[in-house]
């Protein structure tokens, strides 16, 4: 009974801000700062050895994002849980809005103008989906998990945003969204084969949705799937990116010693291809070190989930970490020419304000899970 007693005490001691700040994982925040620091260095180099126009802004945004993150971490996880479906609804509404009146950029209608910055609602949607799914499975008893009817609503909740993102069309983000959602299903204890059915269903539905797209939309998708169709666009970037990586070799050319001239070919060197700039100057050693840092951040997020004492927090942490992982994986795989170009930035390293804010909101939610890992959080009401 000692355990129960401890929980009771915790529940009553609705601890204050100071306690919460004490419980924030400052080590984790240090890791994030290191990552942003790598971003500063790489962007400094991308500008040809100057803080302007990328690096200074980058660090400023990160500072703002950090404050936002800590502020979100202070919010009680139970309050966040209550707003899960609100967040989900807003995400879907924004996706519908962007389809109706969003900006067409980089070949797809996926941007929305807010406060002079272009935002991708699909980024917000991924977080909101994790929130909503975590909330749903939080109140699920082990028995109900076995009931297919109980699984139907979250499956629909997954398919709606995936379908909307697919229609933009943004196949890459749609797939990432489906994978992140699927991982939350798995973490909730849904059987592997059931998750496979959901993923299988998406595999079946996606081509049908694809058929329903207009021809011009289809050609956008084709351009995504087959960038070699456009040798001057994306395929060209890949060639340049690989030259940069290859010429970096084992130890790299050294800070600011990268042959910038080559990368002038890269119109997006400060965003999607920042890793190429970094790895040219710091070589394989630097690249592996960065991957190690990213691994620590992803692994740390999953550990936060494992240490959490309520299902909501566990699933939230798992989903957010997986989302972060997907960014990293797709971006580096793209830069090394392992998968087609996806237009996915490297989180906290690539230049770009709205993406960074979204990453930091996710980190704030993750940290809130960590801060409130032991709170009394009523689960599956119907259980005896």
């Amino acid at each position, binding site marked *: 009974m000692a355990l129960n007693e401890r929980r009771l005490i915790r529940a009553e001691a609705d601890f204050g801000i100071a306690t919460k700040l004490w419980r924030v994982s400052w080590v984790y925040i240090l890791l994030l700062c290191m990552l942003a620091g790598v971003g500063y260095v790489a962007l400094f180099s991308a500008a040809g050895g100057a803080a302007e126009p990328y690096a200074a802004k980058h660090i400023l945004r990160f500072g703002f994002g950090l404050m936002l993150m800590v502020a979100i971490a202070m919010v009680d996880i139970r309050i966040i849980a209550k707003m899960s479906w609100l967040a989900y609804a807003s995400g879907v509404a924004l996706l519908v809005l962007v389809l109706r009146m969003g900006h067409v950029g980089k070949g797809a209608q996926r941007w929305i103008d807010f406060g002079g910055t272009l935002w991708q609602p699909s980024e917000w949607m991924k977080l909101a989906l994790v929130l909503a799914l975590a909330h749903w499975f939080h109140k699920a*008893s*082990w028995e109900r998990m076995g009931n297919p009817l109980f699984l139907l609503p979250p499956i629909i909740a997954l398919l709606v945003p995936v379908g909307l993102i697919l229609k933009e069309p943004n196949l890459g983000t749609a797939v990432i969204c489906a994978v992140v959602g699927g*991982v939350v299903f*798995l*973490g*909730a*204890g849904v059987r592997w084969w059931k998750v496979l059915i959901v993923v299988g269903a998406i595999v079946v539905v996606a081509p049908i949705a694809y058929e329903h797209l207009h021809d011009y939309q289809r050609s956008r998708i084709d351009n995504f799937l087959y960038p070699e169709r456009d*040798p*001057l*666009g994306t395929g*060209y970037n890949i*060639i*340049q990116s*690989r*030259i940069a*990586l*290859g*010429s*970096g*070799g*084992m130890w790299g050319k050294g800070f600011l010693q990268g*042959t910038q*001239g*080559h990368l*002038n*070919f890269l*119109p997006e060197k400060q965003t999607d291809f920042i890793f190429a700039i970094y*790895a040219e100057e710091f*070589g*394989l050693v630097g*690249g*592996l070190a960065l*991957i190690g840092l*990213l*691994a620590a951040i*992803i*692994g740390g997020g*999953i550990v936060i*989930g*494992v240490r959490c004492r309520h*299902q909501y927090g*566990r*699933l939230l942490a*798992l989903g957010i*970490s*997986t989302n972060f*992982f997907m960014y*990293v*994986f797709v971006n*580096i*795989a793209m830069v*090394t*020419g*392992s998968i087609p170009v996806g237009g996915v930035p490297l989180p906290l390293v690539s230049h770009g304000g709205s993406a960074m804010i979204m990453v930091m909101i996710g980190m704030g939610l993750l940290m809130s899970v960590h801060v409130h890992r032991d709170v009394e959080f009523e*689960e599956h009401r119907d*259980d005896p």
Partner: protein
Amino acid sequence: MRREGKRNGVFTRRALLIGGAQLAGLGWLGSRLYQVQVEEGARYSTLAEANRISSRLIAPPRGRLLDRFGAVIAGNRQNWRALLIAEQAADASASVEAFARFIPLTDAERNRIERELRRHRRFIPVVLREFLSWEEMARIEVNAPELPGVLVDVGTTRQYPLGPQMAHIIGYVAPPNEADVAGDTMLALPGMRVGRGGMERTHDEVLRGRAGAVQLEVNAVGRVIRELDRQEGTQGRDVTLTIDAELQASVLGRLGDESASAVVLDARNGEVLAMATNPSFDPSLFNSGVSQAQWVEWTNNRRAPLINKAASGLYAPGSTFKMVVALAGLEAKAVTVNDRVNCPGYMDFGDRRYHCWSKGGHGNVDLRGALKNSCDVYFYEVARRTGIDKIAAMSSRFGLGTKLAVDLPGTRQGFVPTRAWRASQGKAWNIGDTIVCGIGQGYIQLSPLALATMTARLATGRAVEPHLTRAIGGMAGAGARAEDWPSIGLPERLLSQIRDGMWAVVNEQQGTATVARLDIPGVQMSGKTGSVQVRNVTREQREKGFKSENLPWELRPHALFVGFAPHDAPRYALALVVEHGNAGSATAAPIARDIMQDVLRRDPARRNEAPPRVAGRS
């Protein structure tokens, strides 16, 4: 608590598993990085520090236009040119200045270079000067150290070996404008051209091809040391046209100095074997730039060399329209084959008198006689009985005044009036207008291409559409066989009556075009002449014994001829318009005879019966 513990356990297990999978994914990325940076990186690491890799895009050669037997109508030739890559020059405008010291540039050229330097990305080369001579190239190479970023390379430029013969069919190519470049970045490459007219425009995307890229190792001054990697672009595909280039040349030759145009169709499938317009121009002049003086000469020339008269020139069809009028009357049962009309040389209707071309009249004529002698009064009467709307409806079945599915840009549709059209102008239709339409005058305006289509449809009874594309990249489309074309829905009985009349025009005593009788044993042409006034003849002139030969050139009537051969098994259809040629029978018919004889002797449609390959439907 038990269940809670179980759920927690499952989560922990799975989270660690998923986390493990993610770490494995990152590990794989690390190995990829090793592969790209260290293993494949060896390829790049051999490069000295001072050397750089420069990537260049290579413009694909434009696809060729070929005639039906594979003769080159539009090809490419080598073009040595000086390029400037801004990225490789410390100061691009300084390089331009230095270049101008060795090879003087005009102000217009400087403006263009500055504009392109601003507009294009820094690694896209900008053309400084094209069509360099050996001497100029030597001057550039010798002074290379003073010209950072400047290089000489060889590209291709468009060449039209047949020159003016094909000008109106080929159209021309020109450097792309900003809108083109926005649509396809490849067009920013030097030497790329966009089809602006004719078949160059119709098949522009097919001919264009896809750009390749080449990676070069260059030293500090930008000299190429060696080529590292090359991704070949895809050459534009060749397009085979239906034209027979030799026939085209021969037809054009027969038109002589006349301002004239002629179209020869394969009557069974609508393939355009020849489409000649005289006078013509040299299309390659557009590629390198047309001088002001040349332009003024072309636009002021009253024979309009830039206009494709065969497809875009519109003329009243005159008597060549009479077959359509007759068929409209026969189908509407307004007249039968044996009905006779008395022609005293004129017809009075309302308060107007409508003259026949023959002052003395033709007496009692039936359909065959009226066609043979081109009796105007007969057709005035048929048109009056039939009504304009039925004539217009019949016209459109013969491709007249309707949109033809021809693949040549700039083709004009022509016009056949209807009551509804007149009403839309707020005016009532006069029966008098119908009467003049009966002899193809009045509001009717048609192109020689449309008349050739009409003739082919008369000859075969099928709704063939004229077209100039035979195959793309060696793959033929549908439409090569007669069975590919639907029937125009007229009974053979009626059509053969008309063909019989047309046969009499050429092959019977007193026909209006006996001069067009073929000099080939056993093969006969059927046809119809036409002469259309471009001004009204007054009663006073008529009484004085008016002779159009005495008029100034631009007031003389146009001379027309349409015909098909062989009469028994129609294979070729022909339409010919000689502007201000006076009379169809005197001017147009002999030319038509020579052209048709030439066509039959060459027999281009029979020489390669089957098109190369039929494109598979996937």
